[in-house]
């Protein structure tokens, strides 16, 4: 479509047409977006934003074909949300999407925390940070709990130095690097307000909402599906109760809590089967999680709403 050589001329009155659909199909970005939709339950604001970014980059490609010039958009992002809301997982998918859109060349994700960036003594921080930046070039640098980088209570903290070097790289190596800052909402807010230079270079702020009961249940189903387990009818009911109760308890970390609960539940299932080792087991039994595996959880012992 439009391969006439005319496309590189500035648009005139009756000019070549550009086929967005064809480009979309050719980029297999569809598969990446589909896996985002399938793998990630809920997270509507996140999905909308990812689609927007994908659309922007696709249109940008067409604009280049049409000879319309603009600086490549800056895609540094911040992901804020409570623990276990899928920030790292989305970052990984994001790296893949950006690769498919041709925005980054390699599409790998380098996930780091403060420890990987900040040194222990004077002169140690800069090389350490540069090392990490070099590794991330051509891909995405994901800084988890980024607010730890900045410690206002200690003015000699080396975190500041790391931030400065990051800023430099974000500005000078725009074509080579996408940086994603992740962390909990309030702390990130404070982090950005004390580093205005950083805030102005991070174009996309994406919030990860908490999951509701229904979404958590679907996440649990998805996880069990990946691990090739299934729930018996009563277990389904028990899982719904479990999620409802667990959400109200302290230290709840969304999908991460669910994953941990399922891991413990697998252990209990294994124990239950082991105790019946005199008889032989069917494949269905090996794959099935019964209500008792879930109901044995401490969550149900809490005083108050005891549904047992």
């Amino acid at each position, binding site marked *: 479509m439009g391969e006439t050589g005319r496309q590189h001329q500035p648009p005139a009155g009756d000019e070549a047409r550009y086929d967005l659909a064809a480009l979309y199909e050719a980029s297999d970005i569809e598969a990446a977006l589909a896996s985002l939709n399938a793998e990630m339950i809920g997270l509507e604001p996140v999905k909308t934003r990812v689609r927007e970014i994908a659309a922007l980059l696709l249109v940008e490609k067409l604009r280049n074909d049409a000879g319309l010039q603009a600086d490549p958009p800056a895609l540094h992002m911040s992901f804020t949300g409570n623990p276990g809301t899928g920030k790292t997982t989305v970052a990984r998918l994001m790296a893949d999407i950006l690769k498919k859109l041709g925005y980054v060349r390699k599409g790998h994700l380098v996930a780091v925390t403060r420890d990987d960036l900040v040194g222990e003594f004077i002169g140690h921080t800069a090389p350490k940070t540069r090392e990490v930046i070099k590794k991330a*070039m*051509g891909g995405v640098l994901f800084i988890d709990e980024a607010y730890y980088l900045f410690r206002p209570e200690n003015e000699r903290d080396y975190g500041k130095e790391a931030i400065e070097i990051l800023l430099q790289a974000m500005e000078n*190596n725009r074509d*080579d690097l996408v940086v994603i800052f992740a962390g909990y909402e309030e702390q990130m807010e404070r982090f950005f307000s004390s580093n205005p230079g950083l805030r102005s270079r991070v174009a996309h702020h994406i919030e990860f909402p908490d999951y509701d009961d229904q979404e958590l249940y679907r996440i649990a189903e998805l996880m069990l599906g990946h691990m090739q387990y299934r729930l018996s009818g009563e277990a389904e009911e028990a899982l719904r109760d479990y999620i409802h109760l667990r959400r109200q308890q302290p230290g709840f970390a969304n999908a991460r809590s669910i994953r941990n609960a399922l891991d413990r539940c697998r252990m209990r299932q294994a124990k239950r089967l082991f105790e019946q080792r005199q008889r032989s087991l069917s494949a269905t039994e090996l794959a099935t999680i019964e209500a008792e595996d879930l109901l044995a959880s401490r969550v149900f012992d809490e005083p108050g709403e005891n549904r047992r």
Partner: protein
Amino acid sequence: MRITQGTFSYLPDLTREQIAAQINYCLEQGWAVSIEYTDDPHPRNTYWEMFGMPMFDIQDAAGVMVEVDRALSEFPEYYIKVNAFDSTHGWETVRLSFIINRPREEPGFRLDRLEAEGRTIRYSTHTYAGQKPAGARYGGGETA
């Protein structure tokens, strides 16, 4: 005399883009890229100084180019080469090595003939640059 060691040495000097493209090729093969420099271009000088550690876990040429640029600005009057090491079992060796920088003036070599017993002649290669102490061999005189 232009020294010719390693790959591409009979070609005109590589541009920055060409260097990056070669490094990209190395990384795609899974080789670890390293940078070395020297001011002693004697052909038997196989061990050049390492410029930093070999870069084992860099995925993109842009990351290596950061180090290349640093080496070029730090040692503009030295020979600098890029090596790519293949750690695959059975290879475990440098697969590609090319010079990316050389001094502006390359005085070249002198061939010494030593007349030994009988009519035996022993040859040795003598670098003119090597007459000066290390660090003061090319241009300037200031040590790096």
